[in-house]
């Protein structure tokens, strides 16, 4: 069968479609966004045969996926690593309810924080929830594992987690597909207690989950995705998981490693294979992308023997992505390096696009805030986080989705005046509405600017749930009508905008200002499409 070029994200998406997916639920987030977009643009997605519309946030996505699995159909939920924090409540409890239709949770981690605020490792979440997880090492495995993950989920009536990392998500290679199979029929299990997590039921389900652990480990032991490859030289053995396996093999011509290698792509860890390696080899190097998840388990906190090395021992860096050179160094192989970067090369950080509406919003914010001094603008996650950089230097916090409003509230509660929150339209519907409700409930004097560019900009322009109705949402939540303003972020309106912001900063209650102008990227795409249609 011929191969198709796929990003890791796309290979996974194609596998889900081929395995009989009925719905994907997701909120966009780098590096996971392309999974859902691929399904949206697929034949089944466009025909509406597979649900693929964006969810409001990762929690609502996870819950919808649980609902689809409850109804007997195969569901997938996709997010970036920090999205799983948002979805953690339904995710953790989905391991207690178990699954009916195959339920696959895909989490794309971002080691080195290319587009993220931390580099948390989602394998811990799977272990925390006591469910199996998979970590593909390449695009073909991303396909094969995803296809198999739905079967695994249905065989053991459990959700499973697939962990991707940035390099695999966004790297392209040829992938061979399997046969397409039909979706499951609608089917409700005759087990009314399964999804009612009253304590009495949950205790029973939890024991059932605990009872599955041995079988999960046996599956890892016999998994086609975990391999023990023997080597002559027992001075060292290498455990390599996920994409780290590729970096290891890059260092050996033709993939011939002289040391025994244990490739891990399925968890829980197969302890028998680990024991074999530790018994057989003098030193064991653990190469893994992300946190020292395997290393920590293999060596334990006492590290009595001291012969397990990796990110904790310093053989590999404790943080950041791996690469072939770092693994070469850990193996004691000669390192390679080209010429140094010439001194005149300077950093070119990302910047707001020319013509971006946020530029005008920040110019107005900076002018309005000048008389109040520094430290009083609380921002959020999105393109507008770039307001932290010169020439704006306009914001002082960016922590998590929705935190701008509630952090401003906390600072006001502590006595800070005035406090301005800056949040995007999509981030507001993701996690800002309940924050705003807290402020309304207490009549906290905060001014909230919802930068409405009518899209989820940073991830490439996905639809925003509050398109055209932000004002109504705020009014409905309880913001007084005279303190809700739509403004136009353009140079021509600068003075007027500054005056509105300053007036509301003086108001001892909740105000919402909504600078409204379409994202320059989505606008230019729309214009091009319109022009093409005219031709």
């Amino acid at each position: 069968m011929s191969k198709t070029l796929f990003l890791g994200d796309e290979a996974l998406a194609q596998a889900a479609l081929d395995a009989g997916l009925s719905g994907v639920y997701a909120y966009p987030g780098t590096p996971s966004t392309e999974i859902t977009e691929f399904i949206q643009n697929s034949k089944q997605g466009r025909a509406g045969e597979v649900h693929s519309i964006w969810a409001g946030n990762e929690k609502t996505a996870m819950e919808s996926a649980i609902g689809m699995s409850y109804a007997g159909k195969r569901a997938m939920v996709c997010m970036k690593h920090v999205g799983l924090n948002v979805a953690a409540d339904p995710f953790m409890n989905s391991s207690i309810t178990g699954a009916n239709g195959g339920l696959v949770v895909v989490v794309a981690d971002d080691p080195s924080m290319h587009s993220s605020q931390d580099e948390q490792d989602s394998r811990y979440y799977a272990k925390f929830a006591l469910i199996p997880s998979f970590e593909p090492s390449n695009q073909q495995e991303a396909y094969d594992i995803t296809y198999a993950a739905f079967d695994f989920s249905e065989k053991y009536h459990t959700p499973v987690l697939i962990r991707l990392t940035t390099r695999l998500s966004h790297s392209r290679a040829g992938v061979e597909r399997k046969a397409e199979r039909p979706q499951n029929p609608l089917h409700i299990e005759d087990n009314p207690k399964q999804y009612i997590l009253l304590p009495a039921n949950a205790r029973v389900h939890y024991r059932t989950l605990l009872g599955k652990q041995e079988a999960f480990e046996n599956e890892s032991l016999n998994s086609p995705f975990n391999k023990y490859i023997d080597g002559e030289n027992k001075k060292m053995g290498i455990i390599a998981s996920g994409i780290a396996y590729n970096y290891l093999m890059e260092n050996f011509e033709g993939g011939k490693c002289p040391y025994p290698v244990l490739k891990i792509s399925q968890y829980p860890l197969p302890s028998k294979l680990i024991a074999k390696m530790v018994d057989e080899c003098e030193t064991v190097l653990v190469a893994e992308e992300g946190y020292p998840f395997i290393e920590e388990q293999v060596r334990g906190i006492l590290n009595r023997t001291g012969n397990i090395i990796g990110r904790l021992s310093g053989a590999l860096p404790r943080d950041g992505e791996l690469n072939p050179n770092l693994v070469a160094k850990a193996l004691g192989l000669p390192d390679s390096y080209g010429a140094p970067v010439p001194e005149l090369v300077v950093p070119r950080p990302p910047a707001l696009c020319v013509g971006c509406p946020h530029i005008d919003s920040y110019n107005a914010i900076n002018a309005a805030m000048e008389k109040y001094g520094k430290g009083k603008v609380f921002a959020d996650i999105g393109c507008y986080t770039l307001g932290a950089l010169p020439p704006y230097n306009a914001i002082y916090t960016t922590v998590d989705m929705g935190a701008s409003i509630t952090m401003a509230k906390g600072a006001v509660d502590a006595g800070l005046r005035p406090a301005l929150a800056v949040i995007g339209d999509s981030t507001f519907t993701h996690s800002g509405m309940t924050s705003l409700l807290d402020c309304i409930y207490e009549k906290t004097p905060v001014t909230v600017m919802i930068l409405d560019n009518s899209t989820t900009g940073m991830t490439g322009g996905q639809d925003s749930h509050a398109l055209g109705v932000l004002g109504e949402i705020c009014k409905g939540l309880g913001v007084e009508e005279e303190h809700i303003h739509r403004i136009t972020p353009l140079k021509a309106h600068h003075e007027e905008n500054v005056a509105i912001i300053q007036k509301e900063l003086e108001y001892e209650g909740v105000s919402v200002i909504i600078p409204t102008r379409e994202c320059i990227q989505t606008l230019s795409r729309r214009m091009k499409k319109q022009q093409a249609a005219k031709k």
Partner: protein
Amino acid sequence: MKIDIILAGVGGQGILSIATIVGYAAVKRGMYMKQAEVHGMSQRGGDVQSHFRLSDQEIASDLIPMGKADMIISVEPMESLRYLPWLNPETGWLITNDQPFVNIPNYPDFDKLSAELGKLKNKVVINADKIAKDLGSARSANMVILGAASPYLGIPFEEIENAVRENFARKGEDVVNVNIACLRAGKEFAEKL
């Protein structure tokens, strides 16, 4: 046969279409390919790079080891220099546009920049913007660069031409022709050096 390329530029300059075209030609020849891209926040006018690997053997790593790249193909001169640590210092070739993309206040002095490029042993430095503009499509500078790199790719030129044709086919015959002209002009320039 194996060729490792770092593609470099600024977000929005079209380095990924170079990869798409060469990738199409390579896969058609039955070669293996891996291509790591940058998506997300850094795309907003920041520096972007792509590790692009072709081989007749299976490829292990998505990332090219430092000091091992056969080529840097860049649509921006300062960006081409950012990836020198990846270029094989003996045998590697650097192919770059000489037209700076200035979107930062501290962009280096142009003369110093070209002096730095001048120090390199194996290089093609080309005013791709002008060639593309003269041929009637300022946006096709990336095809000029690809043409300039084509003698070093180890893929027959006709196959790259076909890949360009395939890639732009849905945009109409005029677009195809101007891109092919840009590709050929780049190749001629490199061969005259």
